[in-house]
Each structure stands twice: as structure tokens, then as C-alpha cells.
């Protein structure tokens, strides 16, 4: 088991995607002038989200709804429960201000598409099959936690005397949570995939499938730089958040794997489910929170999600959740 874990970690760390992530970290630490222009960042994001949506949709159109509804419901439930327990922990153990706790819990309840994609990459690398339609779980898990988090935050502000009408803010948060760019791209591409099916995917595979892993590697180079720039803020967020940024994903990841198994997913699928639970959003959630809870300090949630949890998840987290899944499924060494 231990040997397996080590081997999985090694397989993960020696993939081009991970190595490019490390290169990005190093480039920032040595103060290189390397920099991705924002349009390139946005282009890579658009590409990754549409590609994964399209593939997931085509898989969904083959698999049918019968297989998918139960894990989908479980995913939504996780999106509601995770922010609740993390809020409590942040508030009562970490003693963070209520509005910051609310903002952070929204990020950890929501999901990171790139972490998910890195997980599929990892499973492919080690030859572990998984349900391609898992993208659907990614899609449904983005929004619920954001809404929960914003509501927690607004209730807290109310108690502190902020008389702003709740309705408008919740409406704004809902709009952002449902129609923010990452959600629209992912859900939209899923729909395109469902409607155009396998044939549509095949026609566009030369763009959306074959270059995918390489594009991911390039994107992780940028993410390495982005994450490393947050490292400077690590001391500013205090020791509690440092610990939280690793313990929370591990707990959520284990819970996710077990729930994934319980709702009938395969070993690979449960690993992905655990990864989703463990991941913290850094695209959809920051935008929605900044708009709906501007009182929260972004240093906290961005540093935790981007500077701690994201690097942890894609390096050690993925092999860990996979090891948990292997243990849960009682799998023998391959």
C-alpha cells in the first residue's frame, strides 16, 4: 500500500504537466521575467473547460441519465455540506471573522476544474479507467457552495448591523454562480457534447482531444507562476489557514472517495469524486465572492485556495485520494 502510494506519487510528479507546474514555481522564485499575457490565460481556460465539457457530454449521451442522477445528487449535497462544516471549523476553531470564514468555505465547497483535469490526466498516466461523464459532477458542484457561502456571509453581516437588502445580493450571487464564465462554458460544452454526441466529438477531436494533455501542461506552467506569487502571502494568513489548507482537502477528499464508491462509481470515478470534494475553486468562487461579499479579505481565500490547496492537491493529493480509493475498493497491487 505504502509502496503503491509512493509509486503513484512518483508517476504523478514525473508527468510533464506536474513538471511544468514546478517550472512555473521555479521561474517565479528566481524572479524570471517570464509572464503569460492575460489573453493567453483566458484562452487556455476556455479551451480546457470546453474540451472537458464536450468530452463529458459525449460520454453522458452514451451512458444515459440512469447512471448519473445518483452521483449528481450526491455531488450537490457535498456542495452544500462542505461549506457548512468548513465554516464552523474556520469560525470556531480558526476564530476567523465570520465574513472571511464564509468566503473561504465557499471556495472549498466549490470545485477546481483544473484540479479535476489534472486528476483525469493522472489516472490516464497510470492507466486507471474512469467514467468520462464525471465532468457532469464537476459542473453541478461549482455553484451550490458559492450560494451557501454568500448566504452565510450575508447573515453574518446582518448580525453585525449591515442593513443592505439581502434579496438583491443573493440574486447577484445566484446570477454569478449560475452564469459566471466558467459555469457557462462547462455546462454549455456539456450540452453541446450531449447533443452532438460521439460523432460531434470525433469531428473535433483533432482540436479538443489530441492536444489536450499538452495544453494542460502549458496551463500548469502558468498556474505554477500564479500559485508561487501567492507564497509571499503565506505568512500573512496565519498558521491556522496553512493547516486548514491541507487538512480540509484531505478530509473532504476521503469523504468524497467513500461517497463516490457508495453511489456506485468505479475506482477511477471515486478518485475523481474525492478530488472534486477536496479541490477548492479559484476561478468561479473568487469572482462570485468578490462581487457578493466584497467585505471579505481576498488574501485569505486566494492564498488558501491557490497558494496551499491547489499545489497540495495536484502534487500529493491526487495520489493520496487514489490510494484511499484503492484501499476502499480493496484492490490488490496491480
Amino acid at each position, binding site marked *: 500500500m505504502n509502496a503503491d502510494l509512493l509509486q503513484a506519487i512518483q508517476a504523478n510528479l514525473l508527468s510533464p504537466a506536474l513538471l511544468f507546474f514546478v517550472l512555473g514555481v521555479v521561474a517565479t522564485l528566481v524572479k524570471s521575467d517570464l*509572464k503569460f499575457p492575460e489573453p493567453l490565460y*483566458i484562452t487556455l481556460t476556455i479551451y480546457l473547460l470546453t474540451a472537458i465539457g464536450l468530452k463529458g457530454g459525449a460520454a453522458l449521451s452514451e451512458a444515459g441519465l440512469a447512471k448519473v442522477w445518483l452521483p449528481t445528487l450526491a455531488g450537490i449535497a457535498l456542495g452544500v455540506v462542505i461549506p457548512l462544516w468548513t465554516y464552523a471549523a474556520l469560525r470556531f476553531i480558526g476564530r476567523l471573522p465570520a465574513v472571511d470564514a464564509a468566503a473561504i468555505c465557499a471556495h472549498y465547497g466549490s470545485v477546481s476544474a483544473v484540479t479535476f483535469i489534472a486528476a483525469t490526466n493522472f489516472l490516464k498516466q497510470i492507466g486507471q479507467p474512469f467514467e468520462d461523464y464525471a465532468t457532469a459532477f464537476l459542473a453541478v458542484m461549482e455553484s451550490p457552495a458559492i450560494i451557501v457561502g454568500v448566504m452565510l456571509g450575508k447573515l453574518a453581516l446582518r448580525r453585525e448591523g449591515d442593513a443592505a437588502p439581502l434579496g438583491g445580493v443573493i440574486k447577484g450571487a445566484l446570477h454569478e454562480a449560475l452564469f459566471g464564465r466558467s459555469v457557462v462554458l462547462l455546462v454549455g460544452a456539456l450540452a453541446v457534447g450531449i447533443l452532438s454526441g460521439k460523432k460531434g466529438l470525433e469531428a473535433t477531436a483533432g482540436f479538443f482531444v489530441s492536444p489536450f494533455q499538452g495544453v494542460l501542461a502549458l496551463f500548469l506552467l502558468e498556474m505554477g*507562476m*500564479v500559485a508561487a*506569487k501567492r507564497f509571499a502571502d503565506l505568512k500573512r494568513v496565519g498558521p491556522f489557514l496553512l493547516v486548514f489548507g491541507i487538512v480540509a482537502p484531505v478530509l473532504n477528499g476521503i469523504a468524497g472517495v467513500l461517497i463516490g464508491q457508495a453511489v456506485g462509481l468505479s475506482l477511477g470515478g471515486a478518485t475523481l469524486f474525492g478530488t472534486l470534494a477536496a479541490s477548492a475553486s479559484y476561478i468561479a468562487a473568487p*469572482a462570485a465572492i*468578490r462581487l457578493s461579499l466584497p467585505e471579505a479579505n481576498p488574501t485569505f481565500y486566494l492564498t488558501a485556495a491557490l497558494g496551499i490547496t491547489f499545489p497540495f492537491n495536484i502534487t500529493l493529493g491526487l495520489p493520496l485520494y487514489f490510494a484511499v480509493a484503492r484501499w476502499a475498493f480493496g484492490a490488490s497491487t496491480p
Partner: protein
Amino acid sequence: MKLVTIVCEKLAREAVTRLLRDVGAHGWTLWEVEGSGAQGSRTGDIPEFTNIQVEVIVPPAVAEMLLTRLEKEFFKRYAMVAYESDISVIRREKF
């Protein structure tokens, strides 16, 4: 006429343009910038860390109102800088 310049984080864009409409500005001009200030450096590489600069031409009274509301409603929430300067425009009636 007054030119009011606002430099703020990109995520405040919606809120700022809404305010501009509210106070009665007839138009605005906007672009993305990098910046450094009290709240750290905003490196312009991902949307979460980019600033925008907004410039809006308004009559003095509107400028005053705009700056007051920015100070009251925005400054504690967003990374932001705002200032006004004197300009002379052609077609005054436009603004």
C-alpha cells in the same frame, strides 16, 4: 469639465459602471492595467489579479457626487484609487 479617473480591481467593474450610470455619466472609457499599491501588486496575468482604469468626463457637480459615493461605498471594499482633474472638452453639451 472634470475628468474622473478610477483605478480599481477588475472584479469591481460591474459595480463601478453601475455607479457611473447611477450618478448620470453619459459614457465612460475603460482599459486593463497592472498596478501596485497598499493592497499589494496586481500583476495583470489572470483576471483575479488585474486592475482596470476607468476615465469618465462629467460636469463638476457630478464629479463631486461620484467621488463622494466612491469614498463612502467602495473604498473599504475594493482596492481602488480615484482622482479628478480639469479638462476642457469640445462639444460640452455632450457630457
